[in-house]
């Protein structure tokens, strides 16, 4: 059994002429929680889409459990995706279905389980995220944090091997943030899954992640365990971790000379 469940090999990808990712390599080990961090627009979420097969690389490949993702046919892709659960940034719950129906959705689509078994499983998943009592509500009635927890319950509906999180902490209050943090870690360990988190939240991520990748300028700028990165001397890493206003990522966007721009 390969130690790397997901492997990104020499991947290049871009929309149009400019490449977003240039020849990058990343490995995600089984059973570990990995994080992908970087500034806005550096292509973090795109990596998740490449892993899930929603986008095809320009060159290089992504392998999941040994299989190259973009070479799979319809059936192969379906099998890969059935092992994945994804939590989208704002939950992406189906607004016309109730909380119960949302969590039951993957079960109904992919299994032939009878209704009473589905009911038990759904309530089990909702209990894991602490929302068993809310199963009759509609997504419109939930707060942001609650919606995201329901989406998490839906993502783990079929006990996936891979769980991906797209900016799970964005816009949450401190309590909800702590809840999600705890859930990501505990679910990963309980399910024996491999989790990948895309985020730019330093404090939370560093508290529970096993391995962290930093993306910048289309490549991996730095990688390592939280302890290694905290001790890193790389200026980019230091700027990010210590939230410095200016450094390798400049404050000023590219502009002509100041004096010539003003009408003085």
């Amino acid at each position, binding site marked *: 059994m390969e130690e790397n469940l997901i492997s990104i090999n020499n991947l290049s990808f871009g929309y149009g002429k400019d490449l977003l990712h240039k020849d990058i390599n990343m490995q995600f080990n089984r059973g570990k929680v990995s994080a992908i961090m970087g500034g806005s627009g550096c292509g973090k979420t795109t990596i998740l889409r490449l892993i899930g097969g929603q986008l095809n690389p320009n060159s290089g490949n992504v392998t999941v459990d040994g299989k190259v993702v973009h070479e799979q046919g319809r059936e192969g892709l379906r099998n890969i*995706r059935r092992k994945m659960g994804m939590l989208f940034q704002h939950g992406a719950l189906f607004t016309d279905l109730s909380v119960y129906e949302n969590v039951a959705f993957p079960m109904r689509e992919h299994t032939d389980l009878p209704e009473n078994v589905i009911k038990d499983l759904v309530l089990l998943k909702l209990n894991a995220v602490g929302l068993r009592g809310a199963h009759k509500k509609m997504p419109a009635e939930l707060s942001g944090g609650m919606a995201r927890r329901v989406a998490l319950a839906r993502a783990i509906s079929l006990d996936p091997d891979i769980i991906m999180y797209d900016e799970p902490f964005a816009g949450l209050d401190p309590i909800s943030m702590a809840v999600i943090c705890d859930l990501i870690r505990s679910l990963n360990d309980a399910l024996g899954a491999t989790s990948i988190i895309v985020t730019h939240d330093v404090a939370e991520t560093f508290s529970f992640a096993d391995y962290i990748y930093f993306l910048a300028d289309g490549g991996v700028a730095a990688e390592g365990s939280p302890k290694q990165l905290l001790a890193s001397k790389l200026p980019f890493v230091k700027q990010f971790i210590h939230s410095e206003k200016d450094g390798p990522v400049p404050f000023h966007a590219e502009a002509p000379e100041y004096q010539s721009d003003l009408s003085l």
Partner: protein
Amino acid sequence: MNNILNFLEKLGASARSSLSGLGSCTRLFFLTIIYSSDSFKRFNLTIKEIYFTGVLSLVIIIVSAFFVGMVLGLQGYYTLEKYGSSEAIGVLVALALVRELGPVVTALLYAGRAGTAITAEIGLMKTTEQLSAMEMMAVSPIARIVAPRFWAGMISMPILATIFSMVGILGGYFIAVLIIGVDDGAFWSQMQANVDFHNDIVDGAIKSIVFGFTCTLIALYQGLVAPPTAEGVSRATTKTVVISSLSVLGLDFVLTSFMFV
């Protein structure tokens, strides 16, 4: 000179984008057909959509049909009376409705009511990443979201058009016979003698099926390609109405020249 070149450039670009839109739409149609098995195996999905596109359009269709029928009766009567043929009012109302107004007006109203609803709903699902989420759960959005709505539209439109024609004729009857006083027997007998089931009614039904296909496909396509912003979705709904209406009117001309000439 520059202005003319610019204008030509824009014209060429818009022609090219229209053609590529037509191509993408065709591709969507074939994909929908390929993924349609779920719409029938799990007919509940389609039934739900028939409710939203068909049943909820009933009120506007019936009310409009009644008024259109009444106007036809009124205008037709005063024109026919000049030639002493006021008893042909039944024929006029029936043929105008069954051949043209039934399918066309229903299609325009349908595009405005159900078409925009479909576009807005799908556009919103795209914006909130619901379609993406479905894809990642290995469920094809085409099979689950697009195809049921397509078949619901194909079923609803002919039904709505037929109801429109019936209510319109009743509206014409109401004005001509009950209000103005045209002879009841003449109204119906002239109509029955001159409206042919195969040529007029069935052809009208065929038209409404073609229009249903067109309007629903356009609505679905615009929803799927809408830019995932609030402005994008709102512009997509406008485009649905405009493109659907123009297509219906254009197709009506083509179909009429095939069928009735």
